[in-house]
């Protein structure tokens, strides 16, 4: 599958490749999400909230969730400021998770973490989901930026767990 080709190329740093890696990292979809984030703002009647902090850069985000009686994410939103990667990741995440069960959310998160860390073995994801997540896979070529991509997801998880402690981008 052609999308996986992109993913497997991680960590390759020849001078003629770096440009391509950067263009992939900052591809149209990501820039679009970062400039026009979806589900951005407060959420009325949120049942779960969490703050996330990336101590590396000081970026903060807040994730709001509204879980319905069946434990589905009926609504989701995020607020905060950050780099293109963290904003795009948060925006994509909220797009994906709306309407999902918490179990699905966790599965998607694990798949996402695997992808951005450049690890093998992303299994059990629907092709449609994988395709969306692969947009972020370019991050794996930039280890210093992985935390930017994972911040929103960790914050989402922290909100689901309701621990109240701010999530770290780890």
């Amino acid at each position, binding site marked *: 599958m052609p999308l996986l080709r992109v993913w497997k190329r991680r960590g390759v*740093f*020849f*001078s*003629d*490749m*770096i*440009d391509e*890696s*950067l*263009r992939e*990292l*900052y591809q149209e979809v990501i*820039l679009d999400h970062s400039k026009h984030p979806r589900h951005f703002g407060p959420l009325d009647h949120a049942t779960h909230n969490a703050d996330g902090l990336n101590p*590396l*850069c*000081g*970026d903060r985000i807040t994730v709001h969730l509204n879980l319905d009686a069946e434990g589905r994410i009926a609504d989701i939103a995020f607020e905060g*400021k*950050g*780099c*293109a*990667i963290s904003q795009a990741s948060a925006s994509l995440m909220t797009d994906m998770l709306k309407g999902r069960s918490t179990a699905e959310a966790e599965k998607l998160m694990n798949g996402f973490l695997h992808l951005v860390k450049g690890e093998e073995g992303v299994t059990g994801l629907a092709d449609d989901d994988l395709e969306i997540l692969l947009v972020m896979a370019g991050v794996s070529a*930039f280890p*210093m*930026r992985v935390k*930017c991509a994972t911040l929103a997801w960790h914050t989402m998880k922290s909100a689901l767990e309701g621990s109240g402690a701010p999530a770290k981008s780890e």
Partner: protein
Amino acid sequence: MSFVPPLSDFSILSKPVNGRRLAYLDSAASAQKPKFVLDAMTEFATSEFANVHRGVHRLAAAATQRYEEARVAVQQFLNAKHSDEIIFTKGGTEALNLVSYAFLSPRISAGDEIVLTKMEHHSNIVPWHFMRERKRAVLKWVELREDGSINPSAVAAQITPKTKLLAITHMSNVLGTVNPLKEIIQIAHAKGVPVVVDGCQGAVHEKVDVQDLDADFYAFTGHKLYGPTGIGALYGKRAHLKTMRPFNGGGEMIAEVTEDKVTYAEPPHRFEAGTPPIIEAVGLAAAIKYLKGFDRAAIKAHELELYQYARKEIGRFKWVRVIGEAEDKGAILSFETTGMHAHDVATILDGEGVAVRAGHHCAQVLMERFGVASTTRASFGLYNTREDVDALIAGLEKARSILL
């Protein structure tokens, strides 16, 4: 230009990064090390190394001598009156924490005040927050002018009869501002307030004379001074050090230990518990010696020329806002880029071989003051060239084309 950057002393600079020529513009975070320093450390470690101040064997004596010679080298570098006024630490941070714990803590109580400026690095903020947390001291902040400079009368205005210490940086790691230390220290002393100076940047770019400044404490680190990591130094006036309690407890800092009591060594050893960074001390002395081989005023002029060139070039970009334009400033260029986050900019610059720092630079109070979450920072060292600036400017144009 009279100063020629000694590029061949720094082999790392000739190694490509991401397939590009490296433009290392992150010396304010840590400077690269010249061969002279690395060789001095290797030479010492392979021919004279042993632990110091213990043992009677020949190598122990040789190592002790080299370690104490390093102390004298630091003494001369700062123009301290006595070599026992120099305490080796693991860096600037530990030096400032030492002042907090061993000097200030016994002298401060609830409601007493510590004055510090909004341009301080976290290493010159958090040790004072400890005093706020543990002793219920009050932190009072000196406001900055819009250009990033400090008005000495603003310092005077924050000092009250309750002030127990003034903590101030010699040179800001974000703004580049060089503070009028001598005048500020005079103001503090006139009101009976001791002054601790964070010299981590200042010691690199400015000539330091602690006697002329009349600083009570002056802290700096080795790794920003073209020396190794893991070593720094604290200058403290002998009269202060003699009255201070120990910092860490352990070997080397004692006079005598029995089951019932312990008595402490005289300064500086009282504050150097455990085996110190011996090889690193030799490396720091070598870095100081290396710098002595140059006209430091010429280095500064060279760095400032690069800064001014970069400032002029970056001034063409309407989407760049430079932070820190004080009249007296060193070669640090911090800026915000409209519509582009500093981390994204730095990632793209890295792809071009340009190493800069992006983020809050461990100076979040300062960031808040200027209403920014993060900036991109290019900082210059003695090995930088106009080519590095050109790479930075071209990289910024590229970032713009990719991100917007």
